[in-house]
Structures are given as structure tokens and as C-alpha cells.
């Protein structure tokens, strides 16, 4: 398995655990995160983007017919998880404060994740036809 795939899979597993932990916190009345807004979308995106999509990206890079992709898979990794970290940190803070600065952090997170997924689709498209 290529190194980038191993890194994707390990990070995806970390996101799975983080998503499940956030799910517990979101459902814990009077718990340490009681009153923190936006935990539900954070949980869903940790599981769907961080876990499932990261796992798919790692396994697809390993499994699909090979092609020279250079550093592009690493760029997908860096953009996807940087965007996810910004979202996980930014969404509860923005919902609590309504600050314009944190709204811009969320917009940056959106651009990073969308860029990652567009590059990923561009990598996988020719490999799916091989």
C-alpha cells in the first residue's frame, strides 16, 4: 500500500473516533460540551468527509489502476484535512459568536475542501477508465 494511502487511512480512522466522540458529547445532556452549538454538523462532516471520503481516497489511490499522479494525492490530503480542521474549529465558534472573521474561516474551509475534492475527482477520472 503506498505511503499516502496509509496516511489517508490512519487519518480517516482518527476522524472516525473523533466523529463518534463528538456524537457522544452532542447527545450528553449537561455534559462538558452542553450548550456548544453546531456539534451535529461537525459530527456528520467528521464522519462523511474525514472518515468515509478520506478512507475512499486512500483506498482508491491504492486499488485503482496505477498512473503517475505525482504529488497530487498529497495535495488532496493536505487540502481536505486542513479544510476539515478549520470547519471543526470554526463552525461552533461562528455559531456562538456570529463573527465575520469566523465566517471567513468557514469560507476558507469550504474552498480548501472543494479544491481537494475537485483535484481528487481529476486524479480518479482517468484511472476509472483504465
Amino acid at each position, binding site marked *: 500500500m503506498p505511503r499516502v494511502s496509509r496516511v489517508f487511512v490512519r487519518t480517516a480512522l482518527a476522524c472516525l473516533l473523533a466523529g463518534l466522540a463528538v456524537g457522544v458529547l452532542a447527545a450528553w445532556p449537561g455534559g462538558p460540551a452542553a450548550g456548544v452549538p453546531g456539534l451535529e454538523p461537525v459530527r456528520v462532516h467528521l464522519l*462523511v468527509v474525514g472518515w468515509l471520503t478520506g478512507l475512499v481516497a486512500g483506498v482508491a489511490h491504492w486499488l485503482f489502476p496505477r498512473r503517475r499522479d505525482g504529488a497530487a494525492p498529497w495535495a488532496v490530503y493536505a487540502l481536505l484535512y486542513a479544510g476539515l480542521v478549520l470547519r471543526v474549529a470554526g463552525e461552533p465558534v461562528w455559531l456562538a459568536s456570529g463573527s465575520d472573521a469566523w465566517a471567513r474561516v*468557514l*469560507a476558507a474551509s469550504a474552498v480548501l475542501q472543494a479544491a481537494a475534492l475537485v483535484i481528487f475527482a481529476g486524479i480518479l477520472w482517468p484511472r476509472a477508465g483504465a
Partner: protein
Amino acid sequence: MPRLSTWLVRASLICLVAGALLGAALLSSPAVPALRGLERLVAAHVELMLVGWLMQLAMGVAYWILPRAGGKRPAGGLAAAGAAGVAAGLAAAVAGTVTHAPALVTAGRGLEAVGAALFGLHVVIRLERWRRLAAERLS
């Protein structure tokens, strides 16, 4: 990779890009006034990412990689019909959420379920044939 898998994986990639761009617009809307009012498209974003991206990708990879009895896949009619049902249902469900047509969303999701059931039947038949052949070889 068989042609049906190529179509399914590429359809899933189109949905991934569409769903990611729509999601990016939704997440950017607090910072970009021109994007405000898109909240009604959250359901379309979810449909594109869960059914369009993850489900079609799983179907494409499953058709490619699940065991084949004697090295041959069963005739692909059931799997292709299932894939077509999912794709048509997805298009109807997304169109229904965008145009506020609940009946279209219901019909689309029903078609997705029928498509998934047909594809599932293909998988069950394929695995059963493989299991029988493996049992014959062992006996």
C-alpha cells in the same frame, strides 16, 4: 475495470464535485452575501454526497471487485438496471429538492430504492454462484 464500473465511478465523481461545490457555497454563505438563501439546497447537497457519491462509488467498485464464479460475472442486466434506477432516482430527487416538488423527491427516492434492490439482487446471485462453485471444488 468493466464498463459499468467505469460509468458508475465516473457518475459518482461528477456527483462528488457537484455536491462539494454546493456544500462549499452553503458553508461560505455567512461570509458571502450573494450566496445567502441557499439553505433550501442542503437536502440536494446531502442527496448528491450520500447517494450520488458514496452509493454509486460503492456499486461501481462492488461490480468490479466482488468474486466471479469461474472468472465470469453474471449477465450485467440486473446490475445495469439497478445503476440506471439509482441514477434516474437521484436526478429526480435532486430536481425535486431544488424545485420544491415533494412528490418528485418521493418518486426519486423510491426509484433509488428499487435501483439499489436490483443491484443487490445481482450481488446476491453473484455471491451465491461463487459459493456453489467453491463448494463444488472443495467436495
